[in-house]
């Protein structure tokens, strides 16, 4: 069966877009083919800086013919209906239609439309211009006098179709004056001449001869192997860097790996800074000396040509640039260490964190307060945590971080160490940003934990207060990551840390601050006024949220009431807690926990202690895995179902406890007594956080509940008895409530 070869030859495609573009091309073309009934055996996309290509193999030569029966109007229908039918089916006259009889509808026309399949080449020529015009580049451009868009100017297109035994056919189509053909070019400098190509194998072989490795994965493998070999040959180790490798393989068609060096004196600079300098600016790899574990004064560059002098000039040029870059970096590193971190802090007052959340300086102040509050709860020294929080962001103002934002935190650690600050403070500078991603380390040192939590909670509460919550795929302030960070820090460190009070403190600082801005004279002694001020604070905030300028309080007041509910620090905390619950669900689900159990536990009042929530969920899951658990759940459901039906019928809610004197049957009495004991036991165990034991206690209900349903008719004819039994059922419900909301359990 024939194969398709397609190549779009252009000016240099940005490295970061190449892999995605290759996927998109494969998907767009193969989807369009399949949609038109053209199935294929395989497809592979290729991408280099200058070409985006696709091979689809095992395509049929043409589409299958198709037959379609189209029902028309009944015989004797009005002329207009008949004409419409002829037009839509393409029949010349109604005589060409068949007449079909139907028992119900009588006689009506049916058109038999036969469509011969088109040649695959024709289909491809049809679909390509559209795919090219609407190709999903993240950014595209126009050029010259044209109107079409591509990532960079498009120069030529190869499109051939055929089997390996015949000369392939060129599929012709045109787009903005570019006519597809069978001619391509090799490497920009090493083999610039044009040449014709036939099919995939031919294309690959000729390109290889013309110094182009078309397969992206192969280029990557070549670079990685050569770089490792070169390192090894010099007694060094390559510092592997997948991101850089991805980028570099998108910058070359003919990778040639070379090694250069820089003066040893630059090794005074921290390894991470050297690496960032060489990586970001020069896109070179760094090397490690296995004897010291530190970086060596060497680097590996990947050039795009096999130079006539073996690469000497290229290495020399790169060495010169790297020397200049490293002397800049060294200059920054030396300058930064001359100013103590604390001396930089004043500047934060003039740096806006977010226009609605004020200056970075104020934010740091809040983090300090919050970190001090958290410290005793996580076993950290409050003064130390406060100091760490005060300095944690100071490195943002250093030259090195200005140049390499990705080194934030880490540089803080270096500078703090340089100043001989307490090791906890240095560690917190780096660790308070963690965990960043799923594979990132979670801080475990108490001071780092206090600062990390304070930082994240202030961020979350702040953006909640100005109503910038994440929506759908939009989360510009990475609030989901912040919440997940809080969750992981708490769970991994097994911290007992009720969140609600912390959220409220954070909210009060943020909401209050706005107030202080408007009423500076209140700033002093505000603590004693706090209660009286709360009302005004809310007003100030709602005014801001409603975007009502000051002086229009009366309109604000109306809006204030509306928004009040959502902005009171308490309700804000509640809203934020449910966000935490959602994030926790996602987190636990990823670890295989049942999300319905998380829901069941969160449905209980006041669940803001994440560790306890998780322990409950675990205990509940274990319990439901046992015979006792399953049977009890079934009994519970039976009780609740009956209750629900009867409550609906009567229009009342039955609330326990049942009255002892109305308990007639032994099974009833037995159940009532069991509930009494179990309730007590459960609440005792829960109080001591022995959730497994609480479940054990709960399991004692199983027998009595089963016996009750076996022996007792709930809907007794005597009304008082019936009501009392329903109350007893409610008692079953409330006994389980000490553990979770069993209504939310699925399955």
């Amino acid at each position, binding site marked *: 069966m024939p194969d398709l070869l397609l190549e779009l030859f252009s*000016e*240099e495609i*940005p*490295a*970061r877009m190449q892999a995605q573009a290759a996927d998109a091309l494969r998907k767009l073309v193969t989807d369009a083919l399949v949609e038109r009934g053209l199935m294929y055996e395989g497809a592979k996309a290729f991408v280099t*800086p200058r070409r985006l290509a696709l091979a689809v193999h095992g395509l049929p030569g043409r589409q299958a013919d198709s037959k379609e029966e189209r029902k028309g109007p009944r015989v004797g229908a009005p002329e207009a209906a008949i004409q419409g039918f002829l037009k839509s089916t393409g029949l010349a006259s109604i005589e060409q239609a068949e007449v079909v009889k139907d028992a119900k509808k009588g006689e009506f026309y049916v058109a038999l439309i036969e469509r011969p399949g088109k040649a695959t080449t024709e289909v491809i020529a049809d679909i390509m211009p559209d795919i090219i015009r609407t190709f999903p580049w993240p*950014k*595209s*451009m*126009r*050029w*010259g*006098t044209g*109107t079409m868009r591509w*990532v*960079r*100017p498009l*120069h030529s297109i190869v499109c051939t179709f055929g089997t390996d035994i015949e000369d392939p056919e060129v599929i012709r189509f045109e787009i903005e004056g570019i006519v597809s053909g069978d001619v391509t070019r090799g490497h920009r*400098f*090493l083999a610039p001449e044009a040449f014709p190509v036939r099919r995939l194998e031919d294309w690959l072989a000729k390109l290889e001869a013309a110094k182009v490795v078309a397969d992206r994965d192969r280029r990557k493998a070549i670079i990685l192997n050569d770089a490792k070999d070169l390192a090894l040959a010099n007694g060094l180790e390559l510092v592997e860097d997948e991101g850089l490798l991805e980028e570099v393989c998108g*910058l070359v068609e003919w990778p040639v790996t070379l090694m250069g060096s820089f003066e040893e004196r630059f090794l005074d600079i921290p390894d991470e800074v050297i690496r960032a300098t060489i990586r970001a600016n*020069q*896109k*070179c790899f760094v090397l490690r000396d296995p004897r010291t574990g530190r970086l060596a004064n060497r680097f590996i*560059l990947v*050039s*795009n*040509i096999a*130079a*006539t*002098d073996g690469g000497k*000039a*290229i290495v*020399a*040029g*790169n060495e*010169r*640039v*790297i020397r*200049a870059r490293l*002397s*800049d970096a060294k200059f920054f590193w030396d300058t930064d260490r001359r100013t103590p971190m604390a001396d930089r802090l004043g500047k934060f007052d*003039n*740096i*806006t964190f977010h*226009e609605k959340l004020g200056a970075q300086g104020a934010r740091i102040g809040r983090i300090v307060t919050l970190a001090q509050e958290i410290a005793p709860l996580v076993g950290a020294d409050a003064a130390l945590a406060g100091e760490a929080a005060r300095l944690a962001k100071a490195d943002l103002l250093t030259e090195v971080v200005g140049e390499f934002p990705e080194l934030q935190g880490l540089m803080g650690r270096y500078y703090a160490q340089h100043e001989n600050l307490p090791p906890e403070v240095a560690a917190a500078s780096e660790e308070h940003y963690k965990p960043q991603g799923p594979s990132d380390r979670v801080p475990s040192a108490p001071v780092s934990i206090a600062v990390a939590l304070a930082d994240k909670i202030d961020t979350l509460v702040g953006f909640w207060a100005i109503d910038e919550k994440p929506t759908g795929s939009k989360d510009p302030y990475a609030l989901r990551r912040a919440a997940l960070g809080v969750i992981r820090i708490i769970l991994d460190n097994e911290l007992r840390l009720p969140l609600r009070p912390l959220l409220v403190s954070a909210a009060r600082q943020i909401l209050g601050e706005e107030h202080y801005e408007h009423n500076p004279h209140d700033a002093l002694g505000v603590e004693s006024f706090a209660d009286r001020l709360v009302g005004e604070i809310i007003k100030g905030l709602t005014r801001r949220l409603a975007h009502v300028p000051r002086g229009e309080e009366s309109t604000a007041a109306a809006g204030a009431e509306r928004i009040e509910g959502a902005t009171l620090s308490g309700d804000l905390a509640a809203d934020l807690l449910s966000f935490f619950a959602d994030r926790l669900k996602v987190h636990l689900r990823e670890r295989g926990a049942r999300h319905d159990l998380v829901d069941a536990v969160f449905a209980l009042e006041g669940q803001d202690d994440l560790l306890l929530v998780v322990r409950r969920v675990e205990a509940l899951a274990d319990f439901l895995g046992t015979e006792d658990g399953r049977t009890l759940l079934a009994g519970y459901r039976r009780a609740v179902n009956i209750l629900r039906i009867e409550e609906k019928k009567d229009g009342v809610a039955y609330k326990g406890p049942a009255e002892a004197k109305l308990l007639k049957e032994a099974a009833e009495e037995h159940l009532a007594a069991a509930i009494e004991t179990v309730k007590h036991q459960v609440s005792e165990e829960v109080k001591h956080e022995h959730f497994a034991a609480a479940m054990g206690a709960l399991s004692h209900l199983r027998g009595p509940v089963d016996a009750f349903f076996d022996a007792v008719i709930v809907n007794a004819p005597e009304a008082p008895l019936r009501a009392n039994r329903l109350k007893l059922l409610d008692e079953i419900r409330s006994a389980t409530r000490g553990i979770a909301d069993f209504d939310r359990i699925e399955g």
Partner: protein
Amino acid sequence: MIDPALLPHMRPDRSFQGLLLTLQTFWANQGCVVLQPYDMEVGAGTFHPATTLRALGPKHWKAAYAQPSRRPKDGRYGENPNRLQHYYQFQVILKPSPANLQDLYLQSLDAIGIDTKLHDVRFVEDDWESPTLGAWGLGWECWCDGMEVSQFTYFQQVAGFECAPVAGELTYGLERLAMYVQGVENVYDLNFNGREGAEKVTYGDVFLQAEKEYSRHNFEHADTDMLLEQFRMAEAACAKYLAAGEDGERHLMAQPAYDQCIKASHVFNLLDARGVISVTERQSYILRVRELAKACGAAWLKTEAGGGAAA
């Protein structure tokens, strides 16, 4: 390959001015009008009306010129080997961008002695944007053995207007290229006039003192009260000239108004270097300059050269 007929002191690999002249000759041969620098302080060759304004409108245009570029914040008191607060850009603008623009660029490198079989020349994604000009385009920074030597851009928008046809812009960093082809480590060691011995004049002889003086000026002494006032005056004058030039479908004074936009932009750069503009104000200054640029662009499109008015 460097033209072997050139006298030794005119060779681009021996003389800074030789490099400039070679590029001029090369682009003159491509049909460009070779202009002189604009007679105002600008941050980049792009600000020259021959680029900003001429990139707008339907008329074809090819120009090349050297432009002293002032980057007050890049001042290093003469201590950095390749960063200057005043340096030369060589600017080429071709509208519409020809299909062989990359080849032409590579040929120009060849003419100044960069052999692409020996050196690693690369086009690395770098999308250009000038927030003050309301302009952006896609293109690359051009690397030679890891050194960024030029900026290559296909203009998509200028002064907030779509560019159609699209202009291609090349910006060569002359000092860095010269260091490259002369093989010197420090910009101040560049041979400026191509002579040797007593007759040799270096880049340092010409500019080192100026770099030191202007660094002091830019960071420490530039009169901020005056500059703040100048910004306001330029902004007001720009608006005034734009209003005065309105003539129904036509505009009669787009270029004088644009001069004031350039002025405001440079004054802003100086204020920025002096550190008197806070982060929040910074954005609003940029927006103010952009508004001027947009209004000037709109006016230009109503002029004859802008293609908006019949002669």
